[in-house]
């Protein structure tokens, strides 16, 4: 059976992608941010994932307002990286696992999640930056298959934290019922607090972020009490991307422990953060 061995949460800001492309990892501005990734990358390497489930949000590359999904799930053999309009390098395509995708889609629809299935899909920096960050040696040959799950953070009404948590639970059940022996790591991308638009642009809320980083490990269901407006207020208009983190955490059905975290202000307009969680499956523990 497939098992989720752990999860990684990370910011996905385009500026990170540019810094990687321009090899600025050791610049004074970037060093405290990139230093936080060494342990995450080391953990991921030893986790030997076959598949990465990428829970992210599209920022206006694959989806427009004519057809704006609440939850979209990829079901393609590969996912294209494309020009987003401001010079981030286009990556080589990311391999998909369509059979796993359809298994997850069947399971989610049976669980009454009204997903959009995407048999052709371009993925933007919400997906590509975490891949380039976490697989720095890939050189265009991605060592894993991927399964994109995009959550609407663009057009309100957004799904609530409670709904995203439940989506994560349902994805966890779907993956762990897949009959192939696959090692899966779930990514949740975006955040933490930031706001790009309005006269509150530049808003960052360190106190709330630190609460989130702690609570998402120990008491993730606490977020289900928040509304989307609460998230906008506390995390900023784009800090709602934390919904991706909540769904990511929901996929971890076993006993969860924190391996590593890092938090640094500012990266671009954002509080940059990463978090690595290990998931020890209940089933596995019983067998041991």
């Amino acid at each position: 059976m497939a098992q989720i061995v752990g999860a990684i949460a990370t910011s996905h800001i385009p500026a990170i992608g540019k810094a990687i492309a321009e090899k600025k990892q050791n610049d004074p501005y970037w060093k405290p941010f990139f230093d936080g990734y060494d342990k995450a990358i080391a953990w991921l390497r030893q986790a030997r994932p076959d598949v990465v489930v990428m829970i992210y949000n599209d920022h206006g590359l694959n989806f427009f307002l004519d057809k704006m999904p609440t939850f979209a799930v990829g079901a393609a053999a590969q996912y294209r990286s494309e020009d987003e309009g401001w010079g981030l390098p286009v990556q080589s395509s990311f391999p998909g696992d369509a059979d796993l995708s359809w298994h997850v889609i069947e399971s989610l629809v049976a669980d009454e999640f009204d997903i959009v299935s995407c048999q052709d899909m371009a993925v933007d920096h919400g997906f590509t930056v975490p891949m380039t960050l976490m697989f720095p040696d890939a050189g265009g040959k991605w060592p894993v298959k991927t399964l994109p799950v995009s959550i609407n953070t663009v057009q309100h009404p957004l799904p609530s934290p409670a709904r995203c948590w439940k989506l994560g639970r349902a994805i966890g059940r779907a993956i762990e019922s897949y009959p192939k022996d696959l090692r899966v790591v779930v990514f949740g991308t975006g955040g933490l607090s930031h706001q790009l638009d309005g006269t509150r642009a530049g808003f960052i809320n360190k106190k709330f972020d630190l609460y989130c980083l702690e609570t998402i490990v120990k008491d993730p269901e606490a977020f289900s009490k928040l509304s989307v407006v609460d998230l906008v207020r506390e995390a900023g208009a784009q800090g709602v991307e934390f919904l991706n983190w909540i769904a990511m955490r929901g996929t971890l059905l076993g006993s969860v422990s924190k391996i590593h975290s890092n938090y640094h202000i500012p990266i671009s307009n954002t509080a940059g953060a990463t978090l690595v969680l290990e998931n020890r499956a209940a089933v596995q523990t019983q067998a041991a």
Partner: protein
Amino acid sequence: MQHHDIPGTVVFDGTQAQKGYALNAMCYSFNAAANRDAFTRDEDAYCAKFGLNEEQRAAIRERNVLKLLAAGGNVYYLAKFAGILKLNVQDIGAQQTGMTVDAFKDMLAAAGRQ
């Protein structure tokens, strides 16, 4: 949309979306280099093609982010317009808050020392 009391913050709900559809559709088209070039060659013609109203066209001409937001623009699509102008999110943040770019960057850094 749920009422909210968050200062300086636009929630992009159905009301905003209805106002901004044409503007956002134009900015969405800027994913493609050919469209960015077409806009650069003749801004007015490109705005007309997408059916922008006068308020939106004025805001585009003025490169005024707050006015673009007021005209129904969504920041994720507007970011692609900013890309044409080679403005990054600090430039835009400074413009919206009425700060210099350096002052805006200092404010961001200060948030880390709280």
